[in-house]
């Protein structure tokens, strides 16, 4: 199946880290995701945008293993991952954050990240060293001994990213990580993500509503509406397509 498709796409497939191939998901009669096809090249940053209810989180959840697609395939680093459990998906190299952040509340910031780092390190001391590295990258090193529940929202968002990053993913899925942040905070995370991508080649896939971040980060954008892909391409171009403007951008101005 994926092989037959691969033949027609040839060279594009070779550098694609994640391939979503005609994936569909139905919930009790509602088609949440409708034959979506998309590719993300290794080392690139891509974004999925679309109005609420467009199917973005469902798509994410299928990549992350929380849901299994009804149809289609998801290929990561050459292997099918659709239908795998979330922990299996993470072990393959995909890290994710949650739309409503879920830190481990009574544990310290440091311990939260150590738990992520323990995936590839058996020794807690080594995990702690890695955790410190990641916390420094995310500007949270000074708060490492605080309880996670005591952090402000922007800090908790960065903690969630740090924790996922500590699992040494090849692909990072970020689910509306900019939601609820002030522009100055958004810019901070955008800078951090851009730097991570540049320095380590980390591939990033974002779901976002905050266009400021999408324009600043994404090399390619996929637009979903009612579960189907209605546009795809560079952000500047996609944002001007009539179909996209009609469905979504009425209220969202491009900064």
């Amino acid at each position: 199946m994926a092989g037959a498709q691969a033949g027609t796409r040839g060279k594009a497939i070779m550098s694609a880290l994640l391939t979503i191939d005609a994936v569909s998901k139905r919930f009790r009669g509602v088609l949440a995701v409708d034959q979506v096809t998309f590719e993300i090249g290794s080392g690139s940053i891509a974004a999925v945008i679309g109005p609420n209810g467009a199917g973005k989180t469902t798509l994410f959840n299928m990549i992350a293993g929380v849901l299994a697609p009804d149809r289609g395939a998801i290929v990561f680093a050459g292997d099918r991952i659709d239908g795998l459990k979330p922990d299996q998906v993470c072990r393959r190299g995909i890290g994710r954050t949650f739309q409503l952040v879920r830190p481990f509340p009574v544990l310290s910031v440091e311990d939260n990240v150590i738990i992520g780092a323990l995936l590839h390190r058996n020794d807690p001391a080594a995990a702690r060293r890695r955790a410190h590295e990641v916390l420094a990258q995310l500007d949270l090193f000074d708060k490492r001994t605080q309880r996670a529940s005591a952090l402000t929202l922007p800090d908790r968002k960065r903690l969630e990213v740090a924790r996922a990053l500590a699992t040494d993913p090849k692909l990072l899925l970020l689910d509306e990580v900019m939601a609820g942040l002030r522009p100055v905070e958004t810019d901070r995370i955008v800078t951090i993500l851009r730097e991570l991508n540049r320095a380590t080649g980390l591939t990033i896939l974002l779901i976002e509503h905050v266009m400021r971040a999408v324009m600043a980060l994404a090399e390619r954008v996929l637009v979903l509406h009612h579960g189907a892909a209605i546009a795809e391409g560079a952000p500047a171009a996609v944002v001007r397509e009539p179909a996209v403007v009609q469905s979504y951008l009425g209220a969202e101005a491009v900064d």
Partner: protein
Amino acid sequence: MRRLIEGVPPRGLVGLAALCLALIVGPWVANDYLLTVLIVILYFAYTGQAWNVMMGFAGQLSLGHAIYVGLGAYAAAALYVHFGIAPWIGLAAAIALAVACGALIGFLAFRFGVAGVYFAILTIAFAEFARIGFDHFGWVGASSGFFLPVANYAHNDLWTLRGNPTMFYYVMLVLTAAAFVLCRILLKSRIGYYWQAIREDEAAARSLGIDTFRYKMYAVIISAGMTSVAGVFFAFYYNNLFPEQVFHISRSIEMILGPIIGGIGTLFGPLIGAFLLTGLSETMLELLGALGLDVPGAKQVFYGICLLLVVIVLPEGVWPWLARKLGLAEKQS
């Protein structure tokens, strides 16, 4: 070794050393009655710690833990009475049986997504099942009871665990200390971190690559195995076993009072809880006795009230509150 005490403030280490010393020297200064009370305290500290592994570390509420005590007790006792096998060897059978039972319960529960209240009820049902089952199990005495031959107390035989209370005290002390050290090691290692993650938020834990099924199983199995050792001790100390008592839900509840009152998920919680509970209840019984009152059920009412107070006023347990007051809260590195 260094890692075990890392992060503990100096005055905590001093306190711990003092406690150890007091416990070691205890039997010399205590009278017979006090000695038996201390044995009970250590017993509850030990079983509380074992239960704590499942609940406090991995977040799975078991209200049927008496099943592991019972299985351990009957296994070792049966091997001793019927085949003359010493308890230290019978221990292996006891642990194997308890681990198998725990694995079954864990597998059924976790594979089928039985959690929270449903899981608690499943554990109660299993314990009740065992209680009724053993009531009909003739080879170990059924409901009439199973008895170990009581030997001469003057002669201490550590191998067959026949002897005077002082011997039992030290056996229990070593067991409790070992449980303590084991839990500390577990908490500070990868498995301890993963357990805490699962306890806090299982879905988030899975998103970090943690195979939650496997780690929950570890918690159940380790907890079951540890608890069964207490069962072996129970059998050889009390020398009689009745399914009606050993598997009864009151035993399961007694076991969890210590850690809940002391502090679920903490290392010292079960010990503090056991001391407080048993210490205070024995004092209360002494007072009632002095007043000429014999009130069966008074101790349990007392337990209930303590539980109520702790859950309402100090939900984290007495130990975290006490530790903060004494400045013993562990510093993060």
